């Protein structure tokens, strides 16, 4: 028992060490050699465009559901006109970024993990390395930067669509016009609501790309390891998203919400 626990901890510590090394190598490779623009653009397309539908639908439903759920308590408080503001602040600050990131963890981290994992298993990464090319530059740097850029973008798009979903729900009962609704939403927004949320999603995106790449790149050489890589990429990335969220909320409340 005790021995098992010790080897377990050692594995964990080794894993952390390896992740640090991987991070350092990633960082070094951003600035050395030539940047793979075409692969980066392709990844942005794959990651951003292909996830837009999913993020859009989920955010729309979340906005809609949130209004329906919030309404009774807000009406009971007699603060019905506060509904757009409540929705906007909670959506922009928290729900939009987290929903988008979780969706992306499920879709993007797993697909990066599986893709790189299968490239590892079929020796494509080794082949790239022994040919003298730099697989880190081509595969990892492009993907991590693409997720760091696209997840924030997706989150902003998700925010807008989510607010629109909220409008539909509100419109059923309250008969508010779209311009007025969005006017209320935007008026209730502060710089300090928007900026930390966007910065946070950059980190979410980074975590998604990094975890996906790390798990795929370091998967073992068996067929089943592709599945393991994809699966643990999703689990780890989702966990990281919440950890980052918890840290971010502390920092923003110190800096902005006095």
């Amino acid at each position, binding site marked *: 028992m005790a021995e098992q626990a010790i080897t377990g901890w050692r594995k964990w510590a080794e894993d952390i060490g390896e992740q640090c090394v991987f991070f350092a190598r990633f960082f070094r490779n951003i600035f050395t050699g030539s940047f793979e623009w075409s692969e980066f653009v392709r990844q942005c397309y794959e990651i951003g465009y292909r996830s837009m539908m999913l993020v859009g639908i989920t955010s729309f439903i979340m906005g809609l559901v949130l209004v329906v759920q919030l309404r009774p308590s807000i009406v009971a408080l007699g603060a019905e006109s506060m509904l757009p503001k409540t929705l906007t602040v909670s959506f922009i600050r928290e729900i939009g970024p987290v929903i988008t990131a979780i969706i992306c963890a499920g879709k993007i981290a797993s697909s990066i993990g599986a893709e790189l994992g299968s490239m590892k298993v079929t020796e494509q990464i*080794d082949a790239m390395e022994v040919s003298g090319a730099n697989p880190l530059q081509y595969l990892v740097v492009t993907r991590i930067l693409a997720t760091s850029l696209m997840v924030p973008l997706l989150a902003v798009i998700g925010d807008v669509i989510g607010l629109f979903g909220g409008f539909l729900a509100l419109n059923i009962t309250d008969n508010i016009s779209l311009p007025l609704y969005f006017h209320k939403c935007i008026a209730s927004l502060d710089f300090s609501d928007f900026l930390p949320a966007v910065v946070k999603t950059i980190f979410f995106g980074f975590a998604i790309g990094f975890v996906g790449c790390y798990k795929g790149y370091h998967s073992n050489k068996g067929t089943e390891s592709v599945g393991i890589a994809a699966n643990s990429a999703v689990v780890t990335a989702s966990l990281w998203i919440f950890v980052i969220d918890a840290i971010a909320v502390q920092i923003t409340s110190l800096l902005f919400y006095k």
Partner: protein
Amino acid sequence: MKATNGNISPKKPASTQKDEVVIHAKGIKVGFVDNEVLKNITFDLKRGENMVVLGKSGSGKSVTIQCIVGLLKPDAGDLTVFGQNVAEMNDDELKQLRMKIGFLFQSGALYDSMTVRENLEFPLTRVLKLNDQQEIDKRVEEVLDGVGLLDAIDKLPSDLSGGMRKRVGLARTLIVKPEIMLYDEPTTGLDPITSREISELILNMQKKYKTSSIIITHDMECARITADRIVVMDDGEYIAEGSYKELQKSDNKMVRSFFNETT
């Protein structure tokens, strides 16, 4: 250490010398967590020579050639390629070395998100850093023609058969004109006719590009066609060495088991 070995020629006038040793391995040991895979591997590969390595599955043949390109580090022993110690190289030196070595993986290892053309362009643009598209096209077509697959140029690897994939893999390594070729089971999993074609292709490439090669196989037909010299590996060591004809007469049990299969 190196001084004791008279075989290593001085580095400079290298390329002209017939007996020049390009890979020198002495007492290579490699172990993983709970098993020692290579115990004592010693060999010299000469320029222009085809050396075939025979050995059963899991005996560490792939591990040996992975050490040569620096994918794995030996735990002990001396491994020099072109007179330079592989284990002591930094990233840049390793890259320079890898540009001179072609490695054909067991699976072909084609990049499966790229077409055949893009696969072949990859080492040209990423490693040799060519950017003259005409020159690139010319080299791609030339090498693809050499392996007889010019009409597959715009196909994806998933649309190719196993034999075709191996050939494209071969073309991709040859396109940078390596001085040393390492073939990992080039004919495994192919039908006899395709196997023979690949074997002959290997022989042609040796003649055409004057490469030195290590060919890992357990296909005796392939060994017979391609080998200048054969070594037999068992339990982490080379136990026999000689030409095909010489080994045929060997009375070592392990060696016999390879040669009997085919006769």
